[in-house]
């Protein structure tokens, strides 16, 4: 501590003067109701259906609204729909009762026509939301307040897919030539990309992509007026600059706080940190089906051998990763899904201490007493400390003679490796927006065919399991369905398809006097901000 304090002198003392010195930076002083909000990246587009992507939805939730709202505990609550359910007559039809007296920002009233239009727009390619509505066959307005959605079969969890599907004005969309979601390939820009008009609590005042977006409170909003009346949203890509902006009082809330700065920020006068678990877990997986690995010197595929997979799970020290790499800001877990999700159990989560001796024996037993080499592909700008976690794993596996070459790169280069089956061993993080295990199985466990298994980089293929996964989509008896989910998980865990590390914990840092709770999907709402 002694030398630390020499170099970073008494920030506390310096920051007590924040209020006073901030006045010097005239024009940057916020009124009590303005929130200056910074995060690492910007929303990709303001179009409500064009992209299925976290930061894009986060901003959209302030301007547009969805039929149902995901609460912090994962449950659903009414938003533009006041009631919903499966109709008694037909178990393939969902009904939604639309809230009355909702106004768009241009003053027009929201009608069922707008809802039908929006759901149709969202499910029509090139909308980025189409995959979530693939089972929808028809959307109809049955009366002035009710909308029916008919699906290709029984879909007991369909409403879970609606938490990011926004409602827009049919008249506005048609008047501005954006009746269908804009396509990247269209070769012309679309009005809805940088203009927005919804029913949400805020109206768009200024949009300068990647620089600044300004929102102001919508006076005629149907819900209670939020405490925040103006939002200035600024993406700041560099971690050090982002933290500096908060420390120097230029922003009020920083959403993507580097783990190593959390403790320091907490100790800083005038700044506080809110934290909470994210609905996302981080794991490694490997090609366990090919005959040979592309990056390995081993004659056969070592990952195909269950003993090797077991040895690796004994070599990984999840607690060390949590304590050092994540500075305590993670939930180590053997379960390859976050606790929020239907299908998670306490038993899946449990893991033992690393046992290098036993791991070494297993490696010898498997025929690799001298280990083997392999490349690990890792993103370096996607998850919290992704590259450092991979680096730590390299050290841990080196102790059982698995000689790992680390290839860490940007996410746009990393993910195609998994999708194109060009990696032997990789890191992936998975969030579950539907809060149900089926989402995990569909993308990560089912054999790759059609829309299934697009992120199944392990090439794992099990016909039995595939059939079970497919059956989940239409099972209406939820208890029986949960039993099938448990069966699938048992098999997945026994096979060690995933080498799980932890569930991510999110931290938002903000100036004292402002409170914003962590959102499990990392989609915070400024409407929930409170001022002391």
């Amino acid at each position, binding site marked *: 501590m002694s030398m630390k304090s020499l170099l970073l002198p008494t920030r506390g003392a310096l920051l007590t003067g924040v209020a006073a010195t901030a006045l010097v930076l005239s024009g940057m002083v916020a009124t009590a109701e303005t929130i200056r909000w910074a995060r690492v990246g910007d929303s990709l587009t303001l179009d409500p259906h064009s992209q299925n992507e976290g930061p894009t939805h986060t901003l959209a939730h302030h301007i547009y609204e969805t039929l149902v709202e995901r609460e912090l505990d994962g449950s659903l609550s009414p938003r533009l729909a006041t009631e919903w359910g499966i109709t008694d007559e037909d178990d393939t039809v969902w009904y939604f009762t639309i809230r009355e007296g909702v106004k768009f920002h241009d003053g027009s009233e929201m009608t069922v026509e707008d809802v039908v239009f929006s759901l149709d727009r969202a499910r029509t390619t090139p909308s980025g939301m189409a995959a979530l509505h693939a089972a929808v066959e028809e959307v109809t307005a049955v009366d002035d307040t009710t909308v029916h959605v008919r699906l290709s079969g029984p879909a007991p969890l369909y409403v879970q897919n609606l938490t990011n599907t926004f409602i827009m004005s049919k008249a506005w969309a048609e008047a501005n030539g954006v009746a269908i979601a804009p396509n990247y390939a269209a070769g012309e820009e679309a009005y809805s990309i940088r203009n927005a008009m919804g029913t949400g609590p805020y109206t768009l005042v200024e949009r300068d992509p990647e*620089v600044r977006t300004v929102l102001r409170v919508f006076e005629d909003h149907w819900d209670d007026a939020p405490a925040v009346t103006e939002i200035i949203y600024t993406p700041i890509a560099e971690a050090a600059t982002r933290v500096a902006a908060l420390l120097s009082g230029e922003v009020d809330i920083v959403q993507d706080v580097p783990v190593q700065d959390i403790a320091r920020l907490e100790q800083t006068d005038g700044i506080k940190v809110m934290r909470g678990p994210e609905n996302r877990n981080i794991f490694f997986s490997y090609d366990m089906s090919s005959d040979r690995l592309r990056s390995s010197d081993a004659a056969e595929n070592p990952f195909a051998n269950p003993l090797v997979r077991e040895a690796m799970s004994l070599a990984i020290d999840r607690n060390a990763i949590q304590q050092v790499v994540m500075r305590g800001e993670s939930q180590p877990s053997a379960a390859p899904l976050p606790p929020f999700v239907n299908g998670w159990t306490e038993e899946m989560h449990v893991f033992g201490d690393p046992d290098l001796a036993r791991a070494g024996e297993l490696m010898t037993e498997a025929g690799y007493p001298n280990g083997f080499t392999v490349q690990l592909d890792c993103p370096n700008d996607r998850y919290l400390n992704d590259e450092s976690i991979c680096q730590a794993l390299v050290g841990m596996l080196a102790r059982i003679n698995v000689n790992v070459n680390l290839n860490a790169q940007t996410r746009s280069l990393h993910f195609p490796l998994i999708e194109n089956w060009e990696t032997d061993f990789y890191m992936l993080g998975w969030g579950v927006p539907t809060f149900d295990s089926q989402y995990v199985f569909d993308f990560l466990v089912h054999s790759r065919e059609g829309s299934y298994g697009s992120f199944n980089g392990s090439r794992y293929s099990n016909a039995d399991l595939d059939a079970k996964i497919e059956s989940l989509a239409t099972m209406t008896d939820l208890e029986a369905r949960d039993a099938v989910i448990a069966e699938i998980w048992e098999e997945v865990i026994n096979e060690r398809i995933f080498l799980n590390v932890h569930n991510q914990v999110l931290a938002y840092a903000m100036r004292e006097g402002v409170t914003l709770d962590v959102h499990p999907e990392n989609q915070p709402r400024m409407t929930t901000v409170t001022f002391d």
Partner: protein
Amino acid sequence: MIAFILRRLAQSVLVMLTVALVAFALFRFVGDPIASMVGQETTLAERAELREALGLNDPFLIQFWNFILRAVQGDFGISYRLQQPVMELILSRLPATLELALVSGVMAFVFGVGFGVYTALNRGGWISGTVMTTSLIGVSLPTFLIGILLIWVFAVELQWLPSFGRGETVYIGNWWRTGLLTESGRASLILPAITLGLYQMTLIMRLVRAEMLEVLRTDYIKFARARGLSNRAVHFGHALKNTLVPVITITGLQMGSIIAFSIITETVFQWPGVGALFINSVRFVDVPVMAAYLMLIALVFVVINLIVDLLYYAVDPRLRVDRANARH
């Protein structure tokens, strides 16, 4: 004269074509644009469709030819990432970069010439020695580190200057967004301008010093002294004046590199200019923006080169094409 200009123009066009080819060709290998454009959940079939629609399946030369045809008309297509015409995007970010480059260029020039003259006239003095040595520290640390240290000291600890962005901006005309007319805009400019200009300042300072020392030894100056002119008149009226031609040339030529090197400064300070736009585009493999940016940089270089060539030609026809020696 006309033949010379034509030849030079033809060469410039050739240079531009080469840059275009390099830019376009190489960035096709940086990564898969589709992967960065769609979410994790998009199906393989949808991806294939998008790939076809974007023309990414066409033969390479056809893609390049189409690119050139459109580029000549100022049409670089639509940014994959921001879904906005690239030209419009670049024009909206250009003022930020040009203001930054201009301010750091002027700063580098003024301080560079000042320090250069001082150290040349007071060679051997301890102040000169200190200036020369500390200026070397500026070029011995990576730009990003200097930027971060400046933020740490002046924004976080002292809280004198903003740590990121341009502050308040106002429009001049329809599209030129300036930060020079507001107080917070000017305050925001200081740290990035220092970071960006430090290297150029050192360069100019050293050049001025060397040129000054050179000129001060010439007979011309000796005669001037012999004529009884004051030191002041000799130093500034004669020596500096003679020094300035190559210095201004070099500074002009450096403007191109300043714009190119603003990539790092803009990244560190979240400066909303074309450099930051470029590096973000590289991360997302936004080919149209990357290609357009490289073409823009090339154009700036080529135009500056051309002007310098023509000026040299106008000033001294004997030099003709050969100015290689003049600019080291």
